[in-house]
C-alpha cells in the first residue's frame, strides 16, 4: 500500500496530465453528438455577448453591403409574391406549417474544416435544437444547441451535416454534404447513374425531411463526374448562399415536426 502511494506521489504530475487529457478527450467526444445542451460553446450567454459586441463593430463598417443584400432579398420576395398562384392564397394548412424567426448572425466561420455560426435568438424566441436555418438565398445550417438568448448552428460547411435534397428538374432524391475543401462548393451524393444529371441543374431541399421546408434552394450543379465502377454520380454544386458575408438568417420552426417524427418512429419499431 505504501509503495502504491509512493508510486502515485512520484508520478503525480504525469497522472494529472493524463487526467486532464482524458477530460479533454471526453469533452471532444461528447460534443460530437448532434444535439446537446453544452454550455462550453458559442451559445454560452457570456461568450455570445462578447461575440455580439465585436460583430456589431464589424457590421458598422459593412452597412452598405448589408443594405444591398437585404434589398436584393426584398426584390426576390416581391417577385415571388407577384407570381404566386392564387390557389395557394387561401390554403391555411400549407401556409401555417412553417414559421420563420429572424435572427442576426453574430459569429460565423467558413475556413475551418468544421464550421459553426452563432445566432442572436434562443429559447425565448422559440428556437430549439434540430431546427433548420436558412438565409435569403438558401440553406445555411441546423441548430445544434441553444441558450436563453443565443444559439449555435452547425453550418452547411460542416462535414457531419447531410441535407436531404432533390434535383429540381428530375425530382431525384439526393444528399448534399460538404467535403471540407472550398466554402463556395459542396458535394451531391447518391444520384443514380440512369438519371440525366446536367451542369446547371438546381438542387433544392426535398419533401422528405422534417428540418427544412421543401423547395429551399441549396445550389446549382457545376461539375459532373462519371466513374465506371461507381453506382452514383460524383457531382459538385456551387452554393447559392455566400457564406463569407452572412448577416441575417431565418430559423425555421415546423409545427408538425413532432407529429411527423412520432409517426415515423412508430413505423420503425
Amino acid at each position, binding site marked *: 500500500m505504501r509503495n502504491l502511494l509512493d508510486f502515485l506521489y512520484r508520478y503525480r504530475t504525469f497522472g494529472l496530465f493524463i487526467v486532464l487529457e482524458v477530460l479533454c478527450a471526453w469533452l471532444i467526444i461528447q460534443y460530437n453528438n448532434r444535439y446537446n445542451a453544452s454550455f462550453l460553446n*458559442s451559445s454560452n450567454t457570456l461568450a455570445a455577448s462578447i461575440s455580439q459586441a465585436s460583430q456589431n463593430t464589424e457590421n458598422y463598417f459593412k452597412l452598405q453591403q448589408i443594405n444591398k443584400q437585404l434589398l436584393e432579398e426584398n426584390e426576390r420576395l416581391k417577385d415571388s409574391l407577384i407570381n404566386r398562384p392564387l390557389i395557394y392564397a387561401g390554403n391555411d394548412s400549407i401556409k401555417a406549417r412553417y414559421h420563420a424567426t429572424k435572427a442576426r448572425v453574430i459569429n460565423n466561420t467558413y*475556413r475551418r474544416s468544421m464550421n459553426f455560426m452563432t445566432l442572436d435568438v434562443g429559447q425565448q424566441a422559440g428556437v430549439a435544437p434540430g431546427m433548420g436555418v436558412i438565409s435569403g438565398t438558401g440553406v445555411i445550417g441546423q441548430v445544434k444547441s441553444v441558450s436563453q438568448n443565443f444559439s449555435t448552428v452547425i453550418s452547411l460547411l460542416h*462535414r457531419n451535416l447531410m441535407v436531404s435534397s432533390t434535383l429540381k428538374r428530375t425530382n431525384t432524391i439526393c444528399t448534399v454534404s460538404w467535403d471540407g475543401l472550398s466554402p463556395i462548393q459542396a458535394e451531391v451524393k447518391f444520384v443514380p447513374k440512369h438519371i440525366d444529371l446536367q451542369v446547371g441543374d438546381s438542387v433544392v431541399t426535398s419533401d422528405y425531411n422534417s428540418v427544412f421546408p421543401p423547395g429551399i434552394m441549396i445550389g446549382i450543379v457545376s461539375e459532373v463526374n462519371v466513374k465506371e465502377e461507381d453506382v452514383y454520380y460524383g457531382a459538385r454544386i456551387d452554393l447559392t448562399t455566400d457564406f463569407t458575408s452572412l448577416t441575417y438568417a431565418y430559423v425555421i420552426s415546423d409545427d408538425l415536426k413532432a407529429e411527423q417524427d412520432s409517426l415515423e418512429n412508430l413505423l420503425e419499431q
Partner: protein
Amino acid sequence: MIRINHILQAKYLAAFLLMQIPLLYRLVFFDVAFGFFYVGYILLLPHGTNRSLIMVIGMLSGLLIDVFSSTPGIHASACVLITFIKDSWYNVANEHSEDDVDLSVNAVGLWGFTKYALPLIFIHHCIIFIVENGGLINFWMLSGKIFYSTILSFIIILTIGYLLSPRKQRI
C-alpha cells in the same frame, strides 16, 4: 524560490489571451493562415513554476478559446500537452541555467526564443487542426493550414513579445 513578475504576466494575459478572443477567426490570411497567437501566453509562463499548476492554467486558457470557437476540448488538450512539455523542451533547446525564470524575448534572445517557441507552436497547431479535421483527410490542405498558421502565429507572438518584454537592465 523563484520570483515571478506578476505585472508582466498580467500584461501577457491581456495581450495574448484576451486580445485573441475578438480576433479568433478574423485574423486569417490567404484562407490558410490562422493566427492562434494566444499560445504565446502559455509559452511565456515563467520557467520552473509548479508543473501541475501551469497545466491547469493551460487547460483553462484552452477552454476559454474553445468556448468561442465551439470546439470544447480541442484547444484545451493541445494547451495541456504544451504546458506539460514546455519546461523540459526549454532545457533541451537552450542550455539550462538556474536563474532563467523569465522566458521573454529580450531575456533569452531571438535565436533562443525561436528554438524554444517554434516547435511548440507547431505541435500545438498540429493537434488543433488534425483533431478538428477529424483525421488526415484533405492532407495537403491540412498541412498547408498547419504550416502557414504556425508561421503567422509565431510572427505575432514574436512581435507582441518584443513590445512587452522588459529591456535587459545593466547592473
